[in-house]
């Protein structure tokens, strides 16, 4: 019974997502949807170990390895031309002791986050593009985006429905809505905590400067549209407390 309910919910969700993205495509225009499509495909390829996922992890680890080489005396060796075996051996012994930024146990999480990150970037970039003509074509590509996102993310949903309404009386529904709200809050907290844990595992305390930098760039970049209108009302030194 619960398995069927989950399947039904997933099917309903599948069509809702496609419809939502198609509608969004119709509103935003073709270039916006094509941009989103490109980022979704790139994200999908990076998120799958069998395509570019493993390459991405290897690339990040190797680049970090190269940077560590330069930091631990490699840069000095290159500048001075001192490439004797003892120096190089010492540098490699030192950097071999350091853990890779993405260890094997975190590799899948890293690929998944890279995929989500690219999809989000695609969404943000698409909002910066102007609305154009060909709404019909945009609707189709929007639906395609919805379809791709559904086949990427829907299999991640649990087999059992996480929440079902059992008691349909007024007090029962109110109580269950409260439970649903706390379930969603708990899910959100778990998600944020998982993301932060991953960031700290990967980047150590550098996770915080990276997060601050990302917030600053994303929010500042979002202010570019409607500049003229706003500069008159809130820009400059305007906008009191």
């Amino acid at each position, binding site marked *: 019974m619960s398995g069927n309910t989950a399947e039904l919910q997933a099917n309903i969700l599948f069509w809702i997502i496609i419809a939502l993205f198609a509608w969004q495509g119709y509103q935003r225009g073709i270039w916006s949807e094509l941009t989103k499509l490109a980022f979704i495909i790139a994200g999908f390829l990076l998120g799958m170990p069998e395509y570019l996922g493993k390459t991405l992890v290897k690339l990040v680890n190797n680049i970090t390895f190269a940077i560590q080489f330069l930091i631990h005396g490699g840069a000095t060796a290159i500048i001075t031309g001192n490439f004797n075996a003892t120096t190089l051996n010492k540098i490699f012994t030192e950097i071999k002791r350091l853990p890779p930024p993405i260890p094997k146990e975190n590799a899948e999480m890293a690929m998944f986050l890279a995929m989500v990150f690219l999809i989000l970037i695609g969404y943000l970039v698409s909002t910066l593009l102007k609305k154009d003509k060909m709404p019909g074509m945009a609707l189709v590509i929007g639906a395609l985006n919805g379809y791709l996102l559904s086949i990427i993310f829907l299999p991640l949903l649990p087999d059992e429905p996480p929440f079902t309404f059992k008691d349909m009386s007024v007090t029962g529904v109110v109580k269950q809505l409260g439970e649903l709200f706390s379930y969603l809050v708990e899910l959100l907290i778990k998600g944020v905590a998982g993301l932060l844990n991953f960031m700290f595992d990967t980047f150590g305390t550098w996770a915080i400067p990276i997060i601050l930098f990302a917030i600053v760039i994303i929010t500042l970049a*979002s202010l570019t549209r409607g500049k003229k209108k706003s500069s008159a009302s809130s820009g400059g030194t*305007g*906008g009191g407390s």
Partner: protein
Amino acid sequence: MGPFEYLWLTVFFFFILIAFVRGYHRELGATTLIFVALFLITYFAVPKLPTIINKLYRETFHISLSQRSIEHIMASGLSVIFIAIIFASYAGDTFAFKGKPTKGFTGFLYNLLVGAMNGYLVAGALWYFQDYFHYPVTDFHILQLPLTTTGEHIANFLPPYVVPPIFWAVLVGVMLIFRVRK
């Protein structure tokens, strides 16, 4: 008074509420001044000021200040200066950023992010002034030690401990570029 982190959390949530009221484009102006303040404090004030204060005091009164007195002066002085800068960044004509803030859910998310960032920076910096100078405020019995386990854990992630001083300057540079671009 209760655990230290409760005060930290109160200030943190307060800034999130402010961000929702003012909008993130205005809050980013305050963020710029917070970055400037943190750069000046962590790059110049914290490493150099204790020696200068001690030297000046010795020159004037021909006696050295005790370590605890310096800690009191530094923690209180930096907190007052920092709060004054924050106040200035919110009072009167503010250093708002040009552009129309995003509306809807994305706008809500941006307000939340910028509010959380400002809350973390302000509450974290004020906590840092106490932590770095060995909690002088406890001498007045306003807050009590020891920290709870959670408090100790959070104290490891206070902004000046995890962000190198020069990084604040980089962030200020980035924000100024966005501020002046056409």
